[in-house]
């Protein structure tokens, strides 16, 4: 079953140098349980493609299906609802909610999606090694710990699609490897599809599939 389908996606931006076409007729499919690494140079359109897949941004042309739901046909509220319920986002800068403690951050999206399950969150916290840090606030955690909270927040809502944008970009290599292990392991265990945007061929190699964006067009990984 397809977790994500991108059909003929194009996207342009107005810049100081004129209009720049970032994505040119990109098509992509992702099955449930599959992990796809999207690599490419800076400015190749990786993050834009991920944002479009998450419904954070609208394409100029093409169609985005998350499971059976057509994002491109939805309004802002519909896309927000879909993000709450079916999509999990992991950012490079973690983007935790600074005013909530670790426990509240972990449960936040699940509660937002109406899927609160305290036992599941507690189990996740234990597997992520966060069970001793639940009362702490994000500013009191290391980068690796913060990213583990972000992964936990994403997976606690049991999304069908996980979109991770350079999730290890801010971490050292050893911590980055640990974090990626957790993402791959937990998404596979949950049967979720994973789209991982990364610069690193080494990390990309650990996904079940790879794609490479060059000048807004999809090709095989080098």
């Amino acid at each position, binding site marked *: 079953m397809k977790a994500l389908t991108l059909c003929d996606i194009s996207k342009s*931006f107005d810049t100081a140098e004129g209009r720049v076409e970032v994505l040119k007729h990109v098509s992509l499919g992702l099955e449930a349980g599959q992990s796809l690494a999207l690599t490419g140079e800076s400015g190749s359109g990786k*993050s834009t493609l991920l*944002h479009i897949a*998450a419904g*954070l*941004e*609208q394409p100029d042309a093409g169609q985005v299906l998350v499971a059976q739901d057509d994002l491109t046909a939805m309004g*802002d*509220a519909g896309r*927000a*609802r*879909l*993000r*709450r*319920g079916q999509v999990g*986002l992991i*950012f*490079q*800068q973690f*983007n*935790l*909610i*600074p*005013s*909530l403690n670790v426990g*509240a951050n972990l*449960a*936040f*999206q699940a*509660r*937002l*999606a109406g899927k609160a399950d305290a036992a599941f969150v507690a189990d996740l916290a234990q597997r992520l090694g966060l069970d001793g840090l639940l009362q702490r606030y994000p500013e009191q955690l290391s980068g690796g710990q913060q990213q583990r909270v972000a992964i936990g927040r994403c997976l606690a809502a049991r999304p069908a699609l996980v979109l991770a*944008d*350079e999730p290890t*970009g*801010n971490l050292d290599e050893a911590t980055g490897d640990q974090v990626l292990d957790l993402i791959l392991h937990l998404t596979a265990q949950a049967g979720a599809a994973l789209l991982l945007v990364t610069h690193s061929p080494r990390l990309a190699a650990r996904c079940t599939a790879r794609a490479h964006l060059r000048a807004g067009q999809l090709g095989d990984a080098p």
Partner: protein
Amino acid sequence: MTAAALSALVSHWRRAPLQLAMLLAGLALATALWSGVQALNAEARAAYATAEGVVSDGGTARLEHASGQMDQAEFARLRRAGWLVSPVIEGRAALGTGRVTVLGIDPLSAPGGIGPALAASDLEGFFDGLGYAHPQTLEEIGPTDRPLRATSALPVGTVLVDISTAQTLLGAEGRITRLTLAPAQPQGLAPLDAVAPDLRLISPEDGAELAGLTDSFHLNLTAFGLLAFAVGLFIVHSAVGLAFEQRRAMFRTLRALGLPLHHLTACLAGEMILFALVAGAVGLGLGYLLAAALLPDVALTLRGLYGAPVPGTLRFDPLWALAGLGMTLAGTALAGAQALWRLWHMPVLAPAQPRAWAHASARTMRVQGGAAVALAGLAVVLALWGAGLVAGFTLLAATLLAAALAVPLVLAAVLAGAERMARTPVAQWFWADSRQNLPRLSLALMALMLALSANIGVGTMVASFRATFIDWLDLRLVAEVNVLPRSQTEAEALHAFLSPRADAILPMQRIDATLAGQPGQVYAMKDHATFRDNWPLIAPVADVWDRLAAGEGVLVNEQLYRRAGLRPGTSMLDLPGIGPLPVLGAYPDYGNPLAQAVLSVDRFEAAYPDTPIRQFAIRTEDAPRLIAALQDDFGLPSPQITDQAQAKALSLTIFERTFLITRALNVLTLSVAALALFAALVTLSGMRLAQLAPLWALGLTTRHLAALELARALALGLLTMIFALPVGLLLAQVLLSVINVQAFGWRLPMQVFPADWARLGLWAGVAVLLAALLPAVRLWRRGPAQLLRVFAQER
């Protein structure tokens, strides 16, 4: 180097024009409110100086009779004895369409001649009846049958004429009010006690000093101006501090590139001085306009409340402008000192990331809490043991400052409680996020709390005063008609005319006197049910009215009762020509700065024979018919007759005018506080994007987030309003029971007006919503590209 550094520093403001506008607006408004109030005060004081100098024989001793007037023969007797004295007559009379104070002098013997501002060439005309008056007086009374010339050297409401003309106008031929003594007298004269044993020598300092009487009014205005100035400085402090945080990276870079620290600090200080001068100039202009707009009401207030003559037009005084600019510079220095201090102590490699400028660490909170407790302690000490007006205002300031410092602590506790009780994730985030952002908004919320509590406090005081005053007016102005005879002959004729037509005729006689060391008046009161049934009394002795009628004692007004610490039943009051008499009770006498004592008519007439009757209060069941009879049959001009409704309306008008400026300043202070909140929210909204974008990414729409931002501002405003309520009531209590007693001599019962609070709450809500609307709309209308930039900036 300086130019390069300045251009880098100023470039921040080019990119943040709204922040710059807020900074300048805060400074300009603070200056406007402060300098506006100062302009009003300066104008009024200049007017008092004119009045004291030209009219009140300022600086010269005078001789008076206990009855308040004397025969002109006294003048001749003293001159023959060699004393350099000059006769003066003063009284109220109808002129044109109004009533004025007629001041008659003898220019040949007066120590100051005809007066320094009046032309000597007019002396002949002056003897022939030419009078002088302020242009405003001439406008108010309209055309008269007397030749009058305009001069601004006289106070408003006074007409200066030759003594014989004045005697005619006042219907007091051959009578004078006082004799002024030339400062230098010949040697070897017979002592005054021997030459004029019936006259009292009054030195200049014994008289009622107008400036002294009105000082409390000006102190009130100054306090309000200072409060508004402080609220304005909150905006400046907030804007300067945030600009400092936003330019942290720039400071680090400039220093890394070789700009010395002292140079950088000087550039920043120079920038602040420039802002202060620009905003100060704008503020002075606004302050002048504000003062010009409010002066007519202040002038009416001062005339109504104290009889103080103040013209209704404003002059420009360069000294006032300089003082205003000085205040702006001082305020800017105060508001920017923290930023400069932190820059001075910032290491070259300080973190470039902006952090919460007023981030209230636990330690900051503890220090703030400690300061609040210390100030509250000071307030308690002053409330228990403080005395005098300065102590009263210090108590007021300590109370307000303690409450302001406590605002973030109280709100943080309430928000933490709400967070614990929240059931949904959005609600939990809402309260937690509000608490986290509290330090960034705390200054604005403190300013809002100050403005709201000042509104509640002053509003409660005014409304309590109003309610009490109206009740009191109903009781005091119980006579249906009042008539003012123009002479003793007319008074006798009037009495004869009224006797068969009125239910009761209550004559009013009074003399000026010094009572318990204070300037005052002694009145005669006829024993009548009008007084017995209607006059409210404070702490009266048993059978007070019977004892008063029997001449066994006096009633005193509340001002004298409180200031002299008199206790009915035990205290005695020394009356001129009578000696000590027991105090039988006190009566409220709002709006009168003078001490007053009331005697029975018999006792009064025995002590002060020949005192003219100044007024008749007449009881009748048919006031219109009596008024018509007085006008048509007796031929009394209408300015000499007032009915109760007119008197009450006049008193209420004076009352409303009195507090018009207070209300105006209330509204302006609340507006400045709303602006402070707007400034804080606008600046915060830029910093909030990084906090809100992840929530949007997690599935909350920008519309939902914008609504939450509005709700947050409203919730914080509401909580601040709730906190301001008890603070405002405490303020009202201090105003009513401490400041008023010290300043005016009367105490009022506090009444509460919940409907007024609801109205204020509504206005505060509107102000908060307006302040939060622009940032919320901007958030709502932010496109995905702007929100995604938050994530793109990560790399």
